[in-house]
């Protein structure tokens, strides 16, 4: 038995396997008031229903007569009519260090008096729904089962820890995290029994994953180890908050400019129609050069109020293909818009919409050129977008890339996760990956303090890129004197681009490209050996079997204390 869950930004899916075959699970959910239906995707939306939203019992599920939160299709639908109570993109918030991710602040624009929830609580709601739905369908409870949960490759250690916490709170006790692009590749392997003939040693596979709200890049190398093929994830890109929703919205805004003023509901309908029109027009060999977009009259006068507009293929190509996937030189660097002091809470959306520019930067940093490409995510259902990405890659690369195709772009991640579950039981190949970033602890120079100047920082490499699950490092050369019972903070840094730093390397001075993460906190609890006073400790790092990075303080006596990310904002 293997279970894979794709906890997506806009949709969740669950796939399972009881033997060789991998099946997707139809997820029962409230699709309309009083109506429960199984759908392959569970939209990742929570609606915080008020007293007048639904009739009593209208949101009942087979396993819960009065769910506290409305989750899934009905949440998305009702939320479009009443945005102030809709929680969306919880996953993007989960990876955003600019907020306290455990604080109940979603929806950001909820009216006064609505009880908000935290990004962790929203993720927990999706997982709890999936788990209950699975059990209600007559399957074994997931609490004690090993569940593979996918996260973006670019998720940092804190976002991974919070995802794991959400799973634990949803009752999933044995969760293993897997990176989404890897999952997509596992799904490809699962579908191609002859995959060993399609890729071979020396090949480097680029995975381009463009979902509704995020874009993720990963490189996997195929290696020969003692005659057997081995797969190794060698690079992951930065977290880019840019995806298909941006493209559909760009089209909808254009069409809207040709229509009389639309209300929020009509805008929503327009958005969806633009998505359908985009996919129809961007199919290679599509015969129609234009699609009619129709918005029915809002009130009971339907025909009289109907609005129509045409969306031409030329326009869609200009907006989507040229706007988001222009040909750029490999040297292109995405523009980083400087954000003015934000007055309101908002996600850090990518300021450069050119996905090709982000891809160019990723490939340049990664070095060696990919030989194959695998696409994943709903946007890449549009054939012309795939073609444009292939032609962009071929302009940069010495040899044309081979496209690995034949994927179900919506369910591949969940299916691949289930395959990985099988692989963990020895029934398939595993990609060697390890941590996707290099992690550092900041150490202050022990110089006399100079007024007005921060002490220069050095960075100690505690977890190198690719550090594998189940392995650890110790750093005996650095001793810290900590007071028992008093809280101490360690400053933590990470990098997605520095892949050569080895465990124990001291970077001095600290390079500017390191990103600071939330600090890690520790209070040495008194032990028998160390009841009070100053205790000299050294640091140790460990990556759990489930892919979570842990740091410890270790005393000479062998006593260990675990450091925890302090994800709560420091107040005041």
């Amino acid at each position, binding site marked *: 038995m293997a279970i894979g869950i794709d906890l997506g930004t806009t949709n969740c899916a669950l796939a399972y396997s009881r033997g060789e075959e991998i099946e997707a699970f139809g997820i029962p959910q409230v699709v309309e008031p*009083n109506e429960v239906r199984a759908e392959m995707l569970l939209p990742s939306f929570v609606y915080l229903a008020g007293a007048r939203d639904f*009739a*009593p019992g209208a949101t009942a599920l087979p396993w819960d007569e009065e769910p506290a939160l409305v989750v899934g299709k009905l949440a998305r639908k009702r939320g479009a009519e009443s945005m102030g109570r809709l929680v969306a993109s919880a996953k993007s918030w989960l990876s955003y260090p600019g907020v306290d991710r455990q604080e109940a602040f979603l929806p950001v624009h909820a009216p006064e008096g609505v009880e908000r929830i935290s990004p962790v609580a929203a993720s927990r709601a999706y997982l709890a729904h999936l788990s209950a739905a699975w059990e209600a369908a007559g399957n074994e409870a997931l609490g004690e089962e090993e569940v593979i949960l996918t996260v973006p490759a670019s998720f940092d250690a804190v976002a991974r820890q919070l995802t794991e916490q959400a799973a634990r709170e949803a009752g999933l006790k044995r969760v293993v995290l897997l990176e989404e692009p890897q999952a997509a590749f596992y799904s490809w392997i699962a579908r191609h029994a002859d995959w060993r003939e399609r890729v071979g040693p020396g090949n480097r596979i680029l995975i381009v994953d463009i979902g509704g709200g995020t874009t993720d890049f990963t490189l996997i190398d195929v290696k020969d180890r003692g005659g057997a093929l081995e797969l190794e994830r060698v690079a992951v890109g930065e977290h880019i908050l840019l995806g298909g929703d941006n493209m559909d919205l760009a089209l909808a805004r254009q069409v809207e400019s040709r229509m009389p003023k639309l209300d929020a509901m009509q805008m929503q309908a327009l958005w969806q129609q633009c998505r359908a029109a985009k996919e129809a027009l961007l199919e290679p060999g599509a015969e129609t050069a234009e699609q009619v977009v*129709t918005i*029915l009259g809002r009130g009971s006068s*339907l*025909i009289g109020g109907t609005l*129509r507009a045409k969306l031409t293929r030329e326009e869609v190509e200009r907006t989507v293909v040229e706007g988001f996937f222009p040909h750029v030189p490999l040297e292109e660097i995405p523009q980083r818009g400087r954000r003015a002091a934000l007055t309101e809470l908002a996600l850090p959306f990518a300021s450069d919409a050119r996905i090709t520019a982000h891809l160019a930067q990723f490939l340049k940093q990664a070095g060696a050129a990919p030989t194959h490409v695998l696409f994943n995510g709903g946007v890449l259902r549009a054939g012309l977008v795939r073609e444009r990405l292939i032609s962009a890659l071929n302009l940069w690369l010495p040899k044309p890339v081979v496209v690995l195709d034949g994927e179900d772009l919506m369910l591949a991640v969940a299916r691949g996760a289930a395959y990985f579950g099988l692989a963990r039981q020895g029934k398939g190949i595993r990609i060697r990956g390890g941590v996707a970033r290099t992690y550092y602890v900041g150490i202050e120079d022990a110089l006399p303090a100079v007024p007005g100047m921060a002490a220069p920082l050095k960075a100690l490499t505690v977890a190198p890129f690719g550090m594998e699950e189940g392995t650890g490092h110790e750093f005996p050369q650095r001793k810290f004197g900590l007071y028992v019972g008093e809280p101490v903070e360690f400053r933590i840094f990470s990098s997605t681009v520095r892949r050569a730093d080895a465990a124990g390397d001291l970077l001095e001075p600290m390079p500017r490209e390191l990103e600071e993460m939330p600090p890690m906190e520790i209070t040495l609890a008194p032990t028998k050996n160390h009841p009070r006073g100053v205790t000299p400790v050294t640091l140790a790092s460990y990556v759990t079997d489930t892919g979570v990075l842990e740091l410890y303080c270790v005393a000479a006596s062998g006593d260990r204390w675990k450091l925890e990310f302090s994800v709560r904002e420091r107040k005041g």
Partner: protein
Amino acid sequence: MSRITLAFSSFFGLLFGGQLPDSVLIALGLSKRGAKSTPAAAAPPKVDVSEGALQLLGLLQRDARLVDFLMEDISAYSDEQVGAAVRNIQENSRATLGRYLRLEPVIDGVEGAVTQLTAAGALRSEAAAIKLLGNVPADGNVKAGLLRHKGWKVEKIELPAMAGKANLKILAPAEIEVE
């Protein structure tokens, strides 16, 4: 009446009322057979307003805005205007019907071809299932004829379970947007 309105009116008249509405009869130039002989004295059998009918109508309004469409006076609008909206309504109505009902022809044959009544299977002797047209012999004993319309029958109907107190007479709520 436009062809589309006619088709919808006929379909729902038959589905909910078991007969074609008067407006359709007039539009088609038909008359009710034996309408005159209906004894005025006999009170019509009391029919409970079927919950299923209300619910289905509500579903078609919710998903396809069908009631809005049928209740609107469309005489002032151009065919192009009507056509633009109808594509949408037809597509959604069809999807809704497909979701809750399984509709099949009474006789799955080729319209215009000579067809045996036995092609209707178990329904071959039911008057409601096969309507004989043209030169029907006095004893009504007919084996075959030209299939003019395949007919429709509901093979399966599965409407969502409603919460106990749901007011099915509300086909669509009034909508008030708070500024």
